[in-house]
């Protein structure tokens, strides 16, 4: 452990919180339709959009209408993106003449981007035209994260409204989130990244005669614009195959710091937004605190394991860090471990080091964060609504333990909400375990494994965890561009996204109808450090009970064998 490493991590966390607090306040204003400084610019544009689309911004939807609009919009997104990918050879901005994709890969990719997963079973620089990257991927980077925010805000309305039917308007939530939160942040972010060397050009690839020769072709593209929203929207799909390890996506230690800030800013900010919207900032802080506890635990595990390194490499006789396979010199061990933790705490999935080459326990922490349901701040919007699911579970469990009626924000939690909350936790977990169980016993699954031994099982587990949690990072040795993997992961990504969103919107609808009881002596406090501890404890216990056996057979046994000097 080095002082400089800790200083960087501490600095990162402090800056993150200092920026997230005002952003959280701003987002609360935007989402509640209050006046903000962007009104003059964005206001008229929004009015125009509503007019063109025939949207009544004052319409207030019940949960079924809200869910209907959301599903239709997202399914339409999948269909149009699929068509765009299949047609890219006939569309503009294809200087490299990359042509159409295979249908199963196109479908996987379309689902992947619309569900905010951004799993990439392809190598972008040799597959995707500039047009597909811009008009397809960049668009869904915005819309999928705006969808996440919309669900979160609908759930908050459900928790705060008294005896109401409606939980808001999906169209305006989506539009406002895109134009007032994601777009302005992305423009500023893209320029900041470019100052460090992230490229932004529509020129074709450039072939140069290298110093020693013979030649090198530099893949180029409009990277900065996609990079910024890839991070702010916790999307994570790289413009290039190497993602944020590619020097054109992440050229310097400072750009790396910016990227990690961009990833967590909105998810952390939203915990504060929650506090503002429920008119009790302490309720936001308690959720922030719980996620922070988990984050620091996971960071310690990843960083500790990477610094301890790989004794099998040390044996060769080296100086410097032993776990440098799949890492970049400019980032080193500390910034690679921090980035890996940040990107899997949220549902981002961008990587600045190859997770497949992480030490076993260093790879376990990212995997576990996805398995926990992306609640360590989580994806944009998705993190908050998943955390609130666990809040409901916690309130219920604690209520049982101390014999009080489970209540949250003055609303009774009853059978229906519990059923829905449990569904929202069980559906993704079932996807991960059933999916990897299937993949580990059929040749179509196992034939894609790249690394032998227990690491092979880790690759399968990681893939399904990543798909189901809509993260998108990978143990990328796995050859995922096959019919089995493209189609099974497309299914898992879809279920993992909407199988959580629908139960939560149902909770929003049923909670909105309830009365708000005044706080009494019998109310269990959901603010303060105790509740943060309980909440993070419940997340860990549920996750550990569900996944410990699988993890024991993968990364845990691999770590033990590595210590024992065994290789495969």
């Amino acid at each position, binding site marked *: 452990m080095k002082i400089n490493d800790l200083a960087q991590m501490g*600095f990162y966390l402090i800056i993150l919180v200092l920026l997230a607090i005002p952003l959280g306040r701003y987002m609360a204003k935007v989402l509640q339709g209050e006046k903000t400084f962007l009104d003059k610019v964005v206001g008229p544009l929004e009015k125009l959009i509503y007019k063109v689309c025939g949207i009544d911004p004052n319409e207030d939807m019940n949960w079924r209408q809200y869910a209907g609009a959301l599903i239709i919009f997202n399914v339409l997104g999948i269909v149009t993106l699929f068509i765009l990918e299949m047609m890219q050879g006939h569309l503009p901005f294809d200087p490299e003449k990359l042509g159409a994709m295979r249908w199963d890969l196109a479908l996987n990719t379309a689902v992947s981007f619309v569900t905010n997963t951004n799993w990439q079973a392809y190598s972008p620089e040799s597959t995707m035209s500039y047009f597909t990257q811009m008009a397809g991927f960049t668009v869904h980077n915005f819309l999928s994260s705006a969808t996440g925010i919309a669900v979160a805000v609908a759930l908050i309305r459900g928790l705060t409204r008294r005896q109401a039917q409606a939980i808001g308007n999906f169209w305006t939530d989506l539009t406002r989130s895109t134009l007032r939160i994601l777009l302005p942040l992305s423009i500023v972010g*893209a320029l900041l990244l470019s100052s460090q060397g992230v*490229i932004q050009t529509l020129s074709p690839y450039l072939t140069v005669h290298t*110093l020693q020769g013979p030649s090198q072709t530099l893949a180029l593209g409009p990277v900065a614009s996609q990079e910024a929203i890839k991070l702010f929207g916790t999307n994570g799909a790289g413009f290039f195959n190497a993602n944020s390890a590619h020097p054109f996506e992440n050229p310097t*230690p400072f750009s790396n710091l910016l990227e990690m800030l961009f990833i967590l800013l909105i998810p952390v900010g939203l915990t504060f937004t929650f506090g503002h919207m429920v008119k009790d900032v302490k309720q936001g802080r308690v959720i922030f605190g719980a996620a922070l506890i988990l984050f620091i635990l996971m960071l310690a595990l990843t960083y500790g394991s990477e610094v301890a390194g790989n004794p099998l*490499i040390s044996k060769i*006789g080296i*100086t410097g860090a032993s776990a440098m396979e799949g890492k970049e010199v400019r980032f080193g061990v500390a910034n690679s471990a921090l980035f890996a933790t940040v990107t899997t705490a949220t549902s981002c999935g961008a990587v600045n080091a*190859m997770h497949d080459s992480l030490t076993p326990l260093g790879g376990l922490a990212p995997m576990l964060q996805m398995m926990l349901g992306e609640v360590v701040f989580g994806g944009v919007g998705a993190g908050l609504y998943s955390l609130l699911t666990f809040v409901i579970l916690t309130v219920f469990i604690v209520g049982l333990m101390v014999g009080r009626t489970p209540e949250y924000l003055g609303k009774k939690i009853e059978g229906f909400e519990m059923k829905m909350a449990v569904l929202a936790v069980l559906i993704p977990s079932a996807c991960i375990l059933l999916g990897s169980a299937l993949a580990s016993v059929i040749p179509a699954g196992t034939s894609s494994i790249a690394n032998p*031994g227990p690491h092979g099982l880790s690759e399968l587990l990681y893939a399904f965890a990543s798909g189901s949690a809509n993260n998108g990072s990978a143990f990328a040795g796995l050859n995922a561009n096959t019919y089995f993997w493209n189609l099974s992961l497309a299914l898992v990504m879809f279920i993992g996204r909407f199988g959580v969103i629908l139960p939560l919107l149902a909770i929003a609808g049923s909670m909105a109808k309830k009365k708000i009881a005044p706080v009494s002596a019998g109310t269990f406090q959901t603010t303060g450090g105790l509740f943060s501890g309980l909440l993070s404890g419940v997340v860990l216990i549920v996750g550990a009970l569900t996944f410990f056996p699988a993890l024991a057979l993968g990364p845990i046994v691999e770590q033990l064998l590595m210590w024992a000097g065994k290789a495969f």
Partner: protein
Amino acid sequence: MLKTAGRAFVLLLVMTLITGIAYPLVVTGLDQLIFPHQANGSLLYKDGKPVGSALIGQNFTAPGYFHGRPSAAGKTGYDATSSGGSNLGPTNKTLLAEAAKRAAAVRKENGLAANAPVPSDLITASASGLDPDITPAAARIQVARVAKARNLSVAKVQALVNQYTEQRQFGFLGEPRVDVLRLNMALDALTGR
């Protein structure tokens, strides 16, 4: 239902125009105006012709050049249209064999003892396969070889390495590093190649 689908479709179209066309084009315009060097790939020129990007590593094998890290990008390494790492796991025998082989090669070409420790970045493949940097230790170990191949004094080459060693950004971010392409270009300039 049909009405909702219609609204969804038009909204998707409008959002595509704003976020998929206008946004990247506006950023392209701004970047080309404010950061033209960076936006176009931080290219380095020799005799007016681009020889590469300061950010993208290249293959160097000649003894008179500093060598970069092993690369898993493309078939022969440093293929900038095929970025990526080896994705070999920590207990994979292939990884361990490769690393041992590379360590032996580094020792041999730099005239080191058979058990001399080797900087780890010279025996492990980078994440991008395009890592432009090596650690200062990895540069130091190559100084004698490069000096000999170019008939320069060791002190002179080491001075150049020191000059091209970038410290942590702002004093604490990232790790100290040496950009191999820029160092090699400076070497060429020094010896008039």
